[in-house]
């Protein structure tokens, strides 16, 4: 089963293709402010490099975030409208799960970490053998230290700096944390989506929505104001 995966939640347009067993191609295009301008072109380039046509693609995986709010709005809209227009089954994959997948660890606890844009605020989660343990974490990276009780692989972009903060917060973690530097990855999204589609788990493409994990500032403000009143 040939599955196209896209993820634009970070500062790359990540596009990859899996045939359900292995990765056929894995591309990462730098995109800081121009993810919208580039993304469809990037998909076209990737398909051409893999010598595939869109009609040969049998499913689409979409990185839902968390990450850049603009990035995930663009990526999820492109993913769902491609799936709708080309009549392909679709599967939404959280970017945290896709990052965890890049470690290929089946036994160790994996903790993907994604910058939440402001200061040391991050999005994170824990996975073991591909299964999420507990809820998503949104907050200061320091507060993640208290949640780490066993050896863990930290994975993400600029991950060394997060390890340093955690070790500073809780020196005992020094020997418990290994790190893997990784960006959002299209091939990982494609592989996970292929597994999900093989099991017949498809979603209505139109229902796909970005995973923000954080309310917009306006909503936070209005809710606070309401409580005070």
């Amino acid at each position, binding site marked *: 089963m040939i599955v196209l995966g896209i993820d634009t939640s970070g500062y790359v347009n990540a596009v990859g293709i899996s045939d359900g067993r292995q990765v056929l191609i894995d591309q990462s295009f730098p995109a800081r402010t121009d993810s*919208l301008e580039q993304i469809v072109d990037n998909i076209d380039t990737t398909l051409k490099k893999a010598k595939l046509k869109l009609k040969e693609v049998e499913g689409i995986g979409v990185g839902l975030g968390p990450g850049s709010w*603009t990035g995930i*709005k*663009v990526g999820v*809209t492109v993913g*769902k*409208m491609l799936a709708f*227009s080309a009549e392909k089954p679709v599967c939404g994959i959280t970017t945290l799960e896709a990052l965890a997948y890049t470690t290929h660890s089946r036994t160790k606890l994996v903790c993907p970490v994604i910058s939440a844009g402001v200061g040391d605020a991050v999005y994170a989660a824990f996975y073991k053998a591909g299964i999420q343990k507990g809820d998503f974490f949104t907050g200061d990276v320091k507060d993640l230290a208290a949640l780490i009780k066993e050896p863990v692989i930290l994975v993400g972009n600029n991950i060394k700096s997060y390890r340093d903060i955690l070790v500073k917060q809780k020196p005992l973690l020094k020997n418990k944390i290994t790190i893997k530097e990784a960006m959002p990855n299209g091939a990982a999204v494609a592989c996970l989506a292929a597994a999900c589609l093989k099991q017949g788990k498809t979603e209505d493409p139109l229902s796909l929505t970005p995973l923000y994990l954080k309310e917009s500032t*306006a909503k936070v403000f209005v809710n606070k104001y309401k409580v005070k009143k």
Partner: protein
Amino acid sequence: MLILGIETSCDETSAALVEDGNNILSSTIATQLDLLKKYGGVVPEVAARRHAELIGYVIKEALNTGKKTLDDVDAVAVTSRQGLIGCLMVGVAAAKSISYARQIPLIGLHHIEGHIFANILSNPDLPIPHIALTVSGGHNMLVHVKKNCRYEVLGATLDDAAGEAFDKVAKFLGLDFPGGPVIDRLSKQGNRKAFAFPRPMIRSKELDFSFSGLKTAVINMFKEKIANGESLPLSDIAASFQEAVVDTLVAKTIRAVEEKNAKVVSVTGGVSANTRLREVFTETCKKKGIQVFFPKLSLCTDNAAMIAAAGYARIKMGERSDLRLNVFPNAPLGG
């Protein structure tokens, strides 16, 4: 030729099917009125998130209502210029994906050009050249429509758009959102001459607008009345304020008509639904021997049918956008 239009530049998620630039098969609009009322206006990030949630359903609904499938669609037209950046992005991302997946042409358009076409779509006999006044909560412009899709911008607002002034005054008076229709309704029971509010820049030769001073004058007067414990004739305030806006818009438009020696006026945008504005334009233009046109009420506020109509005109001229189409929130009206 069947065009799918997509418009998400502000707070309406909309899609439409228009055949040959003049036959509307469907026009689906999902408003964000619930969010507007909650926040007292448009919050860009909140609006953009809603677009991303709804865009697919709205497009599907437009196809279903028009009894068509994507197989029948010959091109996609989308608002890519002027608007809220995050909101524009959702529409353009959707349009590109459809264009790519179906291998059909894509055209990105300026939002104001859409409004100009809303009136052409409503009145197939609207002659070109003409002077277009586009007036809403987000924009306020005088445009010389010289030829099909060829424009000269004569003036624009320097601060608040007229519709924005309506919303802000209404909010201050404790009225509902959006302010335009509420003030319009309330004004019908009020005395238009009760208060002499300023007609901003009405004597200036420039064709630019400024409504922020007028808004402040209304608010200051309102505060003064409260401080003095006087009664608040809301309908009189609304009627007098509305009259000042209408007088200014009409005077500036007539000045533009005379300057360009034009014979035709097209009033368009959300505020063109205002009954008093239509009344005064109709009276004044009749006296001066100028023809005046207004869009159908359903095409006054933001909609995708107008974008499809404008897209049809551009595609007929051989224009296309490529898959790298981007958004430009502050782009001037070109072409």
